[in-house]
């Protein structure tokens, strides 16, 4: 089935197809359409929706519903995302599957509520206190909003980790044709009613332990404190914490190859390269065309996964080109990754433009490239 829908609606449709049956949220521009669509559609599928009193209630309610066995999600933007950080940390610590969609807008603070930006990248990775890792996906079209939201649910169910879909206002509000297949590959969490094995331990560090079912007389202890493999709180021992936090972090790191998704073009033949994500990746494609007309061969990497990241594609590009330009609608966040990964194999240049929701135009990106090549 083909529909002409916005990125926000595509996210919501993806969630419904992935089996989401619980939504608790709070209105915030530019993500409210996701919530309103879920309010309309979820009851039709027998799912539960309620508007929470604030974003903190929203993230905590979806944690409760996830432990109740339902695939749960919420959607928000920068200010709400900031409020949800503690809850996200709790979900990582207790290995609670859930999906949060952050439709980025200009910040910090209230910023420009209706204008697109890409300033939440580092926050999505590191916003929680303590040691933790989540998975972050970044769509650059309404079609990817649908596909990556489904993927987000699948990853969160399999790895028992919160997954953040980092969209932005341009993608969220633009309308394109979206192909919605009849069947999706859906992953459901493994559950267990057998407590002879410890519920917070996995022999295979790549796998999450099966999630114990509440309400079956298993006497499960779920806690945000450091806990041993049986869920019993232990706020004293070094070994208990180090073992736990290592397992939580490696659970994501070891699955990087399976989870990492990106798009690359023309690296072999290029003299200059671009690394970007989200709505900016669209402009990059236009810039490559402009440069080719001027006789310059350019390449791009469009990151669809912002964490965990596999370095190889960017290393390959750094070994091939004279310079990598990182255009982003913020004051320089993704460029820090590229600088680290490129390891001085080539020049790395930041192109920062944020404010007014103005996209970085293909002509601006092409001009910068020409300026860098000289």
């Amino acid at each position, binding site marked *: 089935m083909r529909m002409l829908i916005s990125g926000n609606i595509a996210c919501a449709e993806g969630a419904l197809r992935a089996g989401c049956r619980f939504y608790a949220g709070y209105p915030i521009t530019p993500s409210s359409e996701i919530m309103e669509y879920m309010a309309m559609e979820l009851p039709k599928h027998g799912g539960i929706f309620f508007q*929470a009193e604030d974003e*903190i209630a929203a993230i*905590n*309610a979806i944690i*409760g519903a996830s432990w109740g*066995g339902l695939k749960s999600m919420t959607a928000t933007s920068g200010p709400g995302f900031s409020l949800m950080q503690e809850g996200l940390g709790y979900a990582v610590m207790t290995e609670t599957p859930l999906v949060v969609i952050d439709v980025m807008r200009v910040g910090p603070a209230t910023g420009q509520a209706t204008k697109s930006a890409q300033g939440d990248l580092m926050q999505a990775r590191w916003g929680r206190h303590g040691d933790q890792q989540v998975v972050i996906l970044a769509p650059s079209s309404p079609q990817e909003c649908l596909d990556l939201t489904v993927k987000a649910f699948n990853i969160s169910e399999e790895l028992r980790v919160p997954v953040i879909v980092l969209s932005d206002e341009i993608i969220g509000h633009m309308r394109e044709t979206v192909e919605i297949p009849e069947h999706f590959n859906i992953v459901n969490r493994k559950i267990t009613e057998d407590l002879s094995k410890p519920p917070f331990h996995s022999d295979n560090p790549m796998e999450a332990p099966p999630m114990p079912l509440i309400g079956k*007389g298993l006497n*499960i202890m779920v806690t*945000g404190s450091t806990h041993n493999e049986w869920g019993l709180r232990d706020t004293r021992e070094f070994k208990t914490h180090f073992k736990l936090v290592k397992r939580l972090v490696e659970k994501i790191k070891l699955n990087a190859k399976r989870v990492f998704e990106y798009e690359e073009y023309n690296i072999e033949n290029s003299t200059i390269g671009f690394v970007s994500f989200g709505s900016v990746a669209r402009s990059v494609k236009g810039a490559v065309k402009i440069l080719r007309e001027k006789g310059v061969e350019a390449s791009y990497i469009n990151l669809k996964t912002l964490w965990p990241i596999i370095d190889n594609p960017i290393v390959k590009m750094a070994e091939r080109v004279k310079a990598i330009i990182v255009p982003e609608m913020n004051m320089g966040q993704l460029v820090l990754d590229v600088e680290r990964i490129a390891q001085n194999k080539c020049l790395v240049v930041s192109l920062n433009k944020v404010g007014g929701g103005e996209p970085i135009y293909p002509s601006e990106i092409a001009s910068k490239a020409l300026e860098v090549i000289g």
Partner: protein
Amino acid sequence: MRDHFAVKYLRVELLPTSFCPGCGNGTVMNAFLKALEELGYENLKEFVFVSGIGCSSWIPNPYFKADSIHTLHGRAIPVALGLKLARPELNVVVIAGDGDLASIGLEHLIHAARRNADLLVLMVNNMIYGMTGGQQAPTTPIGFETSTTPYGNIEKPFDTCAVVAAAGANYSARWTIAHFHRLKESIKKAMGKRGFRFIEVVSPCTSHIVRKLKLPVSTYIRQLREKSILINTGGRGEITIGEYADRDEEGFVSRVYEYINRVRGC
């Protein structure tokens, strides 16, 4: 071998509890578990306990032999609500303290009361932040010396029961641990009701309040009893006990499910 009646509901291997000597938490546990015993529950299989952060939040996790979710400070109620909506057949009980529920978690408490969410909430009110070392709480009486009001508290304390009742809860009541039987009967009554049921229990904090007053805890408990006035006698004492609200409006969970069924046309 006969043992204390409560022990069949507890993880005995973890006793004695980490609560201070004379802490009211253990007595609250007794009242709650005796109520359940008298209602015929032989174990806690049908229950899920959700608690926040604070001494009384340690009551269900890890001491109750039951499913328990130990959440973030102040956030027990939204987690409990999400869980209850997903699993309406379970008895979801929130046990937390006054700092957790009436300060950082107050927003969630009031809205859950407004929604008449089908939760039983036990707020153990020791009028201080015990776990973190004796700081002022929104329930600390005027004039009290705490670690953050070393020259005397200048703020009026909350009447949490009145706030919850005004928000629309089906049941809102306050007792002290000196009123063991009334507390137990109140819990039994609340277990038979739907909607939001809130029971506040005034309880001694032996390490911070009782110690500062230089009293044995048994004297403090007697004082709690002496200072309490029943609400329907028309007086407001230092401690007003009794039922602030006793209604039978439809609870949130059934309204949500009715709404879904109406949309689906069934």
